[in-house]
């Protein structure tokens, strides 16, 4: 898949809550085929302190409208600046980057996301459903305030929420949700490392394949710098080219 560097145009922006937003960026040329789990690397301009690009998962792709959706959580100067983009602003993007989640067929799949780790799951859910899988998504957040953007998942399957304070959905962590009593064939996860490790442990205990998406810090995003490695059974390998999605069997978790 050829990687591109292109100016996109900010077409739409939606604040989901104080610190989370989704932006739709429109490509000037027809989008190439983009796989679930892939990411983009965006140039944040007009700031004093963002020197490198910022990697962001591809939240959704609308090929008809030539749009990529990005789901972003403000954590520092770069993501804050992205939140200030105005409609019509340009955003320079290197894409599509990274590998992809596996897409099984006709299976019972479980997706678990926490924090901004939900970003790649929506597009994944669509692909899973398209391949005839049954999709169950669990979103783990702190409280009701953070339980944003649940509806889109409903078109692909079931969506559950866990909150740490119990203000909505089940109280606790996503790996404690009662739906886990059902039997699943595959798990897919993205989010904070402790959560992903819990999902990995659950999957191992059930003996089902589990794929995680890592968010290692990156300088280039396309295999040139070797800064983003993760320690695997094959040694240090690049998260940006051979990941961000890894089967937990590859990792030393």
């Amino acid at each position: 898949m050829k990687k591109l560097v292109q100016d996109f145009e900010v077409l739409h922006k939606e604040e989901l809550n104080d610190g989370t937003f989704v932006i739709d960026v429109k490509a000037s040329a027809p989008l190439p085929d983009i796989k679930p789990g892939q990411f983009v690397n965006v140039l944040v301009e007009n700031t004093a302190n963002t020197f490198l690009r910022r990697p962001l998962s591809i939240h959704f792709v609308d090929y008809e409208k030539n749009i990529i959706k990005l789901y972003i959580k403000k954590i520092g100067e770069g993501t804050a600046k992205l939140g200030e983009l105005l409609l019509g602003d340009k955003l320079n993007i290197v894409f599509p980057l990274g590998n992809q989640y596996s897409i099984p067929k006709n299976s019972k799949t479980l997706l678990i996301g926490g924090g901004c780790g939900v970003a790649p799951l929506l597009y994944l859910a669509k692909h899973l459903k398209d391949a005839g899988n049954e999709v169950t998504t669990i979103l783990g957040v702190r409280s009701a305030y953070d339980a944003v953007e649940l509806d889109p998942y409903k078109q692909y399957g079931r969506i559950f929420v866990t909150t740490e304070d119990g203000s909505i959905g089940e109280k606790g962590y996503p790996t404690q949700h009662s739906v886990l009593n059902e039997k699943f064939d595959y798990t897919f996860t993205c989010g904070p490392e402790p959560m992903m490790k819990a999902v990995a442990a659950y999957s191992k205990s059930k003996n089902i394949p589990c794929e995680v998406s890592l968010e290692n810090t990156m300088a280039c995003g396309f295999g040139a710098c070797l800064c983003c490695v993760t320690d695997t059974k094959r040694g240090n390998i690049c998260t940006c080219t051979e990941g961000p999605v890894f089967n937990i069997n590859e990792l030393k978790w």
Partner: protein
Amino acid sequence: MVNLEVKLKDLILKNPVMTASGTFGYGEEFEDFIDISQLGGILVKGTTRHHREGNPYPRMAETPSGMLNAVGLQNKGVEYFCDNIYPRINHYNTNILVNVSGSVIEDYVETAAMINELDKIPAIELNISCPNVKEGGMAFGTSCSSAASVVREVRKVYKKHLMVKLSPNVTDITEIAKAVEAEGADSVSLINTLLGMAIDSETRKPLLSTVTGGLSGPCVKPVALRMVWQVFNAVNIPIVGLGGIMNAKDAIEFILAGASAIQIGTANFIDPQITVKVVEGIKEYMIRHQVENVTDLIGAIKTQ
């Protein structure tokens, strides 16, 4: 109309723009973005005698107008390079230079000797300045005697263009440059990264697994320019300048300070097409300033 060709002694570059080792992979990573044959040359990844895993993650931290890295020369070793990578990339219609690193002198010598046999590699860049490996590396580049001895031994086995990459982490870079010139280096490239460090005040931990790492990017440009100018006034062999070049203006500054050619490193991460843009920008500058040969700009800074 404008002539961008430069010669580093016997080594002819179609233009002065090369890539910096460790920032351009093996060139392949950039094939989607640019036509590599438009460059004066590419420096492939730091290559060592034996396979190296490099340092543990995290290896990178962003800093004001720059970044720190602690990759630590991760590579599969020179044999793998010769057998597997070289055949894949030797069709590039540009100069391919291998950056040779090591921990002990024999490693440098053996690696250089093997690369000497590769037809399509006209030159090596001897990295005596990597700050990210415990043994060797930078240590060679920070004393005249050790710099001299590694160049002397490599010179015996390496018959083509021998470029030596200098460390900026020294009191007087001209001393080292003169020492390697005396041992037969054909050119020097500078600068490698400055040794730096970053701390996360919230977690109170260093941001790199190795605590310290190599600083690169525009933040180092003033230091790099100064060193190029100092070395230009100290040696007779050609200089390849690098350190923080982000655009054609920066590249021209290095050439004016005395560089015959330049390398682009960190900027490749931010704009994977930057190298060819810099070639274009140099052309435009020359047309605007009515400079016929880019060589007319080398060291042409007016200090009265």
